[in-house]
């Protein structure tokens, strides 16, 4: 495994790369901005170029980083909590639950997209779905199977609701199926930033204790601890992260599975470094994916979920092949 110093150097390198890429992402887009670098480095300049870069692209870049971070941390926590390398929040039902919760709140007219109300509804949905999966599975293998079933059930209910809803509502809900950062604005950031940052810090803090879960529930309980309670706390944090991400930008596939695997390959499975690494890798991957989604075929926006899979899947397969016969 990599030394602490090695991890820090790698992390710093990736962070600098992400910072540089963020500037690059501000400079490109479907709208033709003349001399973008001038407006990026001098925020006091005014005009349409300033507005495009700072009012449209900037919130989107930050939202991509925050949502990527939330997905990375949620993925790391859910794999550790369930002691299962396949337990990504979309497999254990958390994402489907969040979508259902948010959709239900919108259809019932309780709240509108991008508000705290939607996030609360999504959190409740996410928590209910993950707890259903958790309560009904008796082994790590069952967790995946029950999770897929829960996911299918919640997705079906959401689908039925969309089909039966009035048109404007169904249109706003259908954006969840592929996920998009197109609606991100300064209001989105005001909600996203504190929720994602605070929950991620709590997740990081708690994750050290969750290292024990690798020993199996019996050993954890022999150490005088309650593995069920540890998992419940983890699922609450995961649900909050996923709900925040889903309620603001919709479902984004694959990232929560890929980010922790890539991180584990680079720095090992110990939870605290894993959570930090997954946050950084998740943020970087989503930023690249979103930048690609909006610049490959302008003015058309490609669904970001497809790009995350296109980028993440080959990296994941390559890593698993390189790491030999073991799950890292």
């Amino acid at each position, binding site marked *: 495994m990599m030394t602490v110093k090695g991890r820090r150097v790698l992390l710093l390198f990736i962070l600098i790369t992400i910072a540089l890429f963020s500037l690059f992402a501000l400079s490109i887009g479907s709208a033709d901005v003349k001399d973008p670098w001038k407006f990026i480095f001098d925020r006091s300049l005014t005009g349409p170029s300033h507005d495009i870069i700072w009012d449209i692209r900037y919130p989107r870049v930050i939202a991509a980083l925050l949502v990527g971070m939330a997905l990375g941390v949620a993925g790391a926590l859910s794999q550790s909590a369930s002691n299962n390398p396949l337990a990504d929040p979309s497999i254990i039902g958390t994402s489907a639950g969040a979508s259902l919760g948010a959709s239900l709140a919108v259809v019932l007219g309780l709240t509108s997209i991008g508000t705290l109300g939607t996030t609360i509804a999504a959190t409740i949905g996410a928590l209910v779905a993950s707890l259903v999966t958790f309560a009904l599975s008796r082994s790590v293998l069952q967790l995946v199977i029950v999770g897929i079933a829960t996911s299918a059930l919640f997705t079906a209910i959401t689908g039925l609701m969309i089909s039966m809803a009035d048109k404007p509502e169904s249109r706003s809900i259908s954006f969840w199926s592929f996920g998009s950062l197109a609606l991100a604005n300064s209001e989105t950031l005001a909600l996203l930033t504190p929720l994602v940052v605070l929950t991620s810090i709590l997740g990081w803090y708690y994750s050290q204790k969750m290292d024990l879960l690798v020993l199996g529930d019996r050993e954890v309980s022999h150490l005088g601890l309650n593995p069920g309670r540890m998992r419940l706390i983890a699922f609450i944090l995961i649900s909050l992260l996923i709900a925040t991400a889903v309620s603001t930008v919709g479902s984004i596939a694959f990232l929560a599975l890929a980010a922790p695997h890539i991180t584990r390959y680079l720095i090992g*499975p110990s939870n605290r470094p894993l959570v930090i690494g997954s946050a950084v890798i998740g943020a970087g991957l989503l930023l690249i994916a979103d930048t690609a989604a909006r610049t490959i075929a302008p003015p058309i926006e490609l669904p970001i979920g497809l790009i995350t899979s296109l980028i993440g899947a080959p990296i994941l397969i390559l890593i698993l092949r390189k790491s030999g016969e073991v799950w890292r």
Partner: protein
Amino acid sequence: MITASHLTLAYGDRVVLDDFSAECEKGSITAIIGANGCGKSTLLAALAGDLHQVAGVITIDGVSIAELKKSQLSALRALAQQSHHYWMAYTTDEILRLGHDAVSEERFTFLIEKLGITDYLDQSVTTLSGGQLQRIEIARSLLRQLPIVMLDEPFASQDLKSIAAITELLREEAAAGATVLLVAHMRREDLSWCDQVIELGAR
């Protein structure tokens, strides 16, 4: 001292052990033997407080384990499971240290040397053999130096050298006052180094 009085254990409707009684003195080694499926591991799980008995009482130093809290039990006994499969590539060193913050370096070094773990201390647990993993379990059960040590088939995947090392270690632990209980797939005559051998009848 651990006592089991008129213990009946069952999985659902299937009775695994019926009206079983035994005593294990402090500082002694007790081996539980018997055919496959006779309830050896089930008995060990009940004595460890992992199973609720259908009938009977288990006590540690006169206190029923049903009355002990999880945290109280955790300070009394450790259990080495037969095998544990790891999905995540933690190193042997990381696995041994999990939950053992209070263990001294001296104790840690003593055990990994005695059990021949030093060579694979930095290796990922996902790459180890069954015997190597089992020795990690045994080391984990002994690290905290608790009054009761339980081991489920500690010799199952071990070579002769490791069996000798584990045997010697368990005798030292018992001599230092630990009550050792182990489940073994061995003949009674190979367990002459134990103070008591309990043979469970096959059902």
